[in-house]
């Protein structure tokens, strides 16, 4: 199934002031596959995702989409390409309700007027598929939601659209057992439908359960990007914590993070 | 002072009952900050006059806010005023109020300021250009007394948004401009003071002095601005050497004159003005149509407005006592501390 990658980054560098967070990172995502992006806390996973989403401009580096070089100057560019992202810090507007958040920036209209009814209908359908039982009303402000409910809303928001790439930054962190299973199932389903899915997770079981490829970041460097079937559980953990594992990984590791 | 007690007491007496006899008189004063006179003098004298005549009155202050001015007028008409005495904030709102009153059958008097194009039955005032003229002449007198050659004059005008400040300036410029033109005097910095704000006046004058260190005379449009200039001059011990003018005959201004720091002030015998206005108002309330000694032509509508015009008086060291004699300022207020000796010297008793 794997032709060229739908999304490809090369040589990404990113610094915040004096601190260099990403060092010459290369990363690809393929249609129909789930790519797991793993790495220790502070490895730079979320920063990489934000560079992909146009939240942070990267200092240097190239961005290819469907083989063509593109410039992503902001979130609108990324969305226009068909890249949907669930950020780790769940960018929701606390003063809006669930439906409003889910359709933010892409409201359905009939004429000039918002089509609240159809938005509510679609939102309910999507959330139903994610096993949320305790939400009393779709018109509840997201500020009053529990941690897991917020996360579910953020996920539902991202999968509502017809996109080509879906990136989920630790989507199951706050989810319960049933909800986690649903989300993993959803991830698989999205990939099977031909989308490229990037999943960031610290849970190795989840990673091995759904992913086709694993990309491991170590202190801001890409340690390895391999097929999941070709590595073992402990190899991946070694890549995460030490940056290399046998053949794989960063060759000349000097351990300097900054 | 002591105005608050009196006015708050008045409306608490049942308004409808006693007002039935000859109707109520409403007075709208313009503000409380451009000059001390409105709250300290006009309110007091008008109130006294109305009370003495047993007429019910309602005296309010618009605090320099045109909207408030119109609101108060609406409220007075609502409250059943028979006569409205207004000091307009500007001719536009003034005219709006006068026209509305007239349409409701309420008689009106322009007090102190003529509403151009308005419909007031009477106009009672001091001549504001005359005030300015006295200030200009006063400055010339003091400079002549000091025998200053080719003095550089700084002007501290009133608020740029206050039409009266423009009138004052017209007055003193009518005296000073010929002297500038003839080269007898030199025109120095010339600035307006927003809101007649004394603190800003201090900064403005300090900068005038920095810009033009040889300023030899200051035309300050009122006592407060004058005092601000004097405060700056004091730092360089130039106070008393550079004459400063004023207006309103405030305690502060008079004390500055006694101390020799201020050249002159302009005293407007507000009691006379208030008495004239209140007499007209009472007569109107009674349904009479009193005669007026003079008339003023409204330049906008070319209407001859029946008028009572009063003369302002220039006050120098020698005639400070006139203000005290008039009762406008008491000796107790004026001759505190160090000023007791000066008072004696100036013949204040």
């Amino acid at each position: 199934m794997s032709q060229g990658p739908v999304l490809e980054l090369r040589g990404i560098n990113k610094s915040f002031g004096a601190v260099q967070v990403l060092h010459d990172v290369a990363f690809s995502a393929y249609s129909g596959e789930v790519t797991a992006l793993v790495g220790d806390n502070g490895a730079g996973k979320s920063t990489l995702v934000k560079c992909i989403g146009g939240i942070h401009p990267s200092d240097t580096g190239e961005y290819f989409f469907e083989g063509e070089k593109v410039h992503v100057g902001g979130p609108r560019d990324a969305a226009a390409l068909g890249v949907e992202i669930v950020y780790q810090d769940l960018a929701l507007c606390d003063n809006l309700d669930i439906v409003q958040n889910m359709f933010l920036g892409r409201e359905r209209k009939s004429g000039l007027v918002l089509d609240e009814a159809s938005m509510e209908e679609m939102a309910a359908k999507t959330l139903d598929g994610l096993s949320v039982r305790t939400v009393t009303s779709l018109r509840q402000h997201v500020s009053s939601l529990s941690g897991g409910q917020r996360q579910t809303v953020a996920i539902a928001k991202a999968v509502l659209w017809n996109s080509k790439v879906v990136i989920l930054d630790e989507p199951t962190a706050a989810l319960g057992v049933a909800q986690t299973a649903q989300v993993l199932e959803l991830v698989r389903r999205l990939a099977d439908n031909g989308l490229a899915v990037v999943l960031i997770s610290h849970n190795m079981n989840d990673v091995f359960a759904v992913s086709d490829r694993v990309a491991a970041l170590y202190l801001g460097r890409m340690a390895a990007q391999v097929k999941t079937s070709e590595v073992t559980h402990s190899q991946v953990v070694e890549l995460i914590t030490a940056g290399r594992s046998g053949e794989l990984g960063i060759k000349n590791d000097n351990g300097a993070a900054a | 002072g002591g105005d608050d007690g009196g006015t708050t007491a008045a409306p608490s007496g049942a308004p409808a009952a006693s007002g039935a006899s000859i109707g109520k008189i409403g007075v709208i004063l313009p503000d409380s900050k451009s000059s001390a006179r409105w709250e300290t003098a006009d309110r007091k004298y008008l109130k006294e006059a109305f009370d003495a005549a047993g007429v019910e009155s309602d005296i309010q202050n618009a605090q320099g806010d045109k909207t408030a001015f119109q609101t108060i007028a609406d409220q007075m008409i609502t409250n059943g005023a028979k006569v409205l005495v207004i000091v307009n904030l500007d001719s536009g709102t003034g005219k709006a109020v006068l026209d509305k009153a007239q349409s409701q059958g309420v008689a009106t008097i322009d007090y102190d300021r003529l509403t151009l194009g308005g419909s007031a039955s009477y106009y009672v005032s001091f001549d504001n250009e005359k005030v300015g003229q006295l200030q200009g002449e006063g400055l010339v007198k003091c400079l002549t007394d000091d025998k200053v050659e080719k003095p550089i004059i700084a002007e501290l005008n009133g608020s740029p948004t206050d039409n009266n400040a423009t009138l004052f300036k017209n007055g003193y410029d009518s005296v000073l401009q010929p002297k500038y033109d003839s080269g007898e005097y030199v025109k120095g910095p010339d600035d307006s003071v927003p809101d007649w704000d004394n603190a800003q006046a201090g900064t403005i004058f300090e900068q005038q002095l920095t810009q033009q260190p040889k300023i030899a005379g200051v035309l300050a449009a009122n006592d407060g601005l004058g005092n601000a200039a004097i405060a700056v001059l004091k730092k360089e011990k130039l106070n008393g050497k550079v004459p400063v003018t004023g207006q309103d005959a405030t305690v502060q201004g008079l004390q500055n004159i006694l101390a020799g720091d201020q050249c002159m002030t302009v005293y407007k015998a507000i009691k006379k003005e208030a008495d004239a206005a209140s007499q007209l108002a009472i007569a109107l309330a009674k349904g009479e149509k009193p005669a007026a000694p003079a008339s003023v032509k409204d330049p906008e509508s070319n209407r001859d407005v029946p008028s009572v015009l009063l003369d302002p008086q220039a006050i120098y060291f020698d005639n400070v006592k006139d203000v005290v004699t008039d009762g406008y300022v008491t000796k107790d207020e004026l001759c505190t501390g160090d000023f007791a000796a000066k008072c004696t010297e100036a013949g204040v008793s």
Partner: protein
Amino acid sequence: MTTETLPEQQRRNDTSITAYAGGYVDRVRGGELGALPAVFGLIVLCVIFSILRPAFLTPGNFANLFTQGAAVVVIAMGLIFVLLLGEIDLSAGYASGVCAAVLAVSLTNQGYPWYVAVLAAMVTGVVIGVALGSLVAKLGIPSFVVTLAAFLGFQGILLLLVKGGTNISIRDTTILAIANKNVPPIVSWIVLVVGVAVYAGIQLFRARRRIGRGLKADPFTLIAFRVLSLAVISGVAVYVLNLERSRNALIVSLKGVPIVVPIIVVLLIVWTFVLRRTAYGRHIYAVGGNAEASRRAGINVDRIRISAFVICSFMASIGGIIAASRANSVDPNTGGSDVLLFAVGAAVIGGTSLFGGKGRALDAVLGGAVVAVIQNGMGLMGYSAGVKYVVTGSVLLLAAGVDALSRRRAASTGRR
């Protein structure tokens, strides 16, 4: 793993009026007070003033209230857009002054017809808004500083336009009519009936559509109640305003709804519609609630910012026209003194937050009414200048205190 029915779904059919009323009481107890506190404060004020001064309750005074408060309400309505973003516009007062001056200069000095002058004033407002908004959004200068600079600058421009201290009279009867004339009684009744009917129609239509799609909708009894309240309240207001209020009706008859009232009502409807029913309005709230989240959602945050300033200055221009009409003139103080503070205060008293994300167009009307009632009532009391300031301040605090105390529960349930 289980796919139980959502409680939501269970509730969907539970649309009886009692369930609704119960829900409303719960919401109120839970701190979602909406318009209640401001209305409550308003009623307290009106009762106090009516007791102290019976003249407060006359039809004439009722009519005055509207014209007195109109300019502040209109300016506050525009400010709400800026406040919703968590920004501030200190210059809105003087912007209204500048626009009024443009109007006056065009009318009186240049002799243009009234519609040209009004257009010129409005265009001025829009231009001001674009300038302020761009400085804030594009250069990133804090709005407080930009509008403080504008506050000073506009004061100067106003002075230059009206040439130092004088004032420009307005004699155009159309403009003067805005704040000084009334709608013929018969017209106001017709408009009222049509308006209520349209409102009822929209409500019913929407409920039908939601029910058609199987969504929870307002019960018909509630809709009937809403329509009825609207009809009664506005009916009473129109009735009172249509009473004769001239003091000598023989000379001149004075009755009818002041023309500013329909203007405010139209503006209120338009902006409420924009804020609640359009994507643009949604984006305003989103940017005010969380600008970064909005940016990530693909909203053009800069454009939203600029547009809010444009609306604010545009509304200021309308406020300026109303003020000019009411004052029959424009002078260098138009839009000055406390106009801005009262406008912002009106919005905040109405329930708009200065931190952004929370507010409605109605807040301007409710808060503006509080401010207008206070000024109107104080005008009847006959205090001296100093005392009046003190009492006005205290009354404002009282009105806001009633509001705050009735909102206390909101904090205790964890929603601020």
